[in-house]
């Protein structure tokens, strides 16, 4: 009994100290977040024809290949609707689909292919008919300077070449397989990366020689990689569907996001990143 007394006395001031620190850290983070948010929404507020004020938060799960485009679209959307906070969750479409089916609190799903969207809709998570908002084509990504002189899909079959791709469950893995089949080329991959950005990273870092990715990814990779075009008749057109999910809490904001994406402004941003309008 007498032993117990001092213990809480010794612990409490310590606890209070860490609590104060935690509060301070939280406040600091909040202040930083607020100032950052202020930056992004202060870009261009002009040109908005919207009359209703939308507010709340929106979570968009989007295919990894949409990374750069959706980052831009997010800031354009937020300057039109400064009261809305958008979070873009990127990954392989197949991974995102599993997250949604397992109950991730997501409002909108933008997939890099239609089969993956079908997976989500057959599980009963799609609220309204998906809309195709963009198309993309495939290209071969090779190392800077193209040291192996890869000029076509057939060149990927040369021995010793390190070709990386994604599993066929991931849209790009499936598209790449289709393209190789169409060209009657048999290539043995060295690795199945988690998503298309994984392929890009392996090539830009010089660990892999080549991979088949979306044409838009090579634009995003900059000067660390080179693009070998696949002729139109050999190419596969990737169609990107988007849909509001049954888990969407703020349907007005979700509807506005999709409308923005297919509006001339949204489409022009997508084209700026190399996507085509459907």
């Amino acid at each position: 009994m007498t032993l117990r007394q001092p213990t809480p006395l010794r612990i409490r001031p310590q606890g209070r100290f860490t609590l104060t620190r935690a509060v301070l850290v939280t406040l600091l983070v909040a202040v930083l977040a607020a100032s950052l948010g202020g930056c992004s929404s202060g870009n261009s507020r002009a040109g908005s024809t919207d009359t209703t004020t939308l507010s709340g938060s929106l979570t968009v799960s989007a295919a990894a290949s949409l990374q750069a485009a959706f980052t831009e679209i997010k800031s354009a959307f937020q300057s039109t609707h400064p009261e809305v906070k958008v979070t873009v969750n990127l990954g392989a479409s197949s991974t995102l689909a599993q997250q949604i089916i397992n109950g991730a609190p997501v409002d909108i799903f933008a997939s890099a292919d239609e089969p993956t969207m079908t997976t989500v809709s057959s599980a009963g998570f799609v609220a309204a008919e998906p809309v195709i908002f963009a198309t993309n084509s495939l290209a071969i990504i090779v190392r800077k300077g193209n040291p192996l002189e890869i000029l076509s899909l057939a060149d990927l079959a040369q021995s010793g070449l390190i070709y990386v791709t994604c599993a066929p469950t991931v849209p790009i893995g499936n598209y790449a397989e289709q393209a190789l089949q169409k060209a009657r080329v048999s290539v043995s991959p060295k690795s199945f990366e988690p998503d298309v950005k994984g392929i890009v990273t392996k090539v830009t870092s010089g660990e892999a020689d080549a991979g088949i990715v979306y044409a838009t990814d090579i634009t995003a990779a900059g000067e660390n990689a080179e693009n070998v075009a696949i002729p139109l008749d050999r190419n596969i057109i990737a169609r990107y569907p988007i849909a509001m999910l049954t888990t969407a809490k703020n349907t007005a904001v979700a509807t506005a996001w999709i409308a923005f994406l297919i509006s001339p402004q949204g489409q022009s941003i997508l084209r700026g990143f190399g996507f085509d309008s459907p």
Partner: protein
Amino acid sequence: MRKAHQTQKRAVGLNRPPAVIITIATIAVVFFALPFIGLLLRVPWSNAWSLLTTDSSLIALRLSLETSLSATALAIVFGIPLAWVLARYGFPGRRMVRALCLLSLVLPPVVGGVALFTAYGRRGLLGDPLFDWFGIRLPFSTAGVVLAQTFIAMPFLVLTVEAALRGVDRRPENAARTLGASQWFAFRKVTLPAIRPALIAGAVLAWARALGEFGATITFAGNFPGSTQTMPLSVYLALESNPGQALVLSMLMIGISFVVLLSLRDRWLGGSENGENSL
């Protein structure tokens, strides 16, 4: 000294903790147990065996066993001398060296994988000459998996063995030396047997960590069935294509880890053994 400390601890341990503490501890236990119970309920037991014995599962299982055992062997070969040096010799910068060697213990494994690239990748500091001179390429190879696993798992062995070397009674070793044994002989015949339990514990922990390695492996060595796709990678991939198989493989990994931890109970807990006995 140590004995007195233990008896004192045991006397305190006889008092039952307050109800609040027991309640909070129970919540913590439930927190840990629930995910495993959830997994157990979801596993498709009816065809679990057939899922476990599919080619893809067996290939991943075999690769995992081969690579993790190789990584453990490397960890023992390099880890014991490293622990010996860290425990016995006070050289300038020892704390820095220890922190450096244990860094991968706390680092996110993906970061470890990226760091491995810069050293052992095709254009890495060592990877570049390795390829030019010997044609050895570590990324996308089974050797790369072993390297990544060793990088992540060895600190477990070093930490355990170093602690044991510090705690061991040095008098028998010194006696052996005065009787004419060489330093190496005394270490091998006197000290090493004395720290055997810690050595085994460290090796098993390192092995378990290597078996479960995911981040550094997928980042550095890639992911391909038969050459680099170990069990954890296989589970991750199967989650999208064949969830049933992913669950069965997960169960197997949990089973292995659980058995390992149970067998280590006394050895790993070391100084606090008495605390557990009094429960």
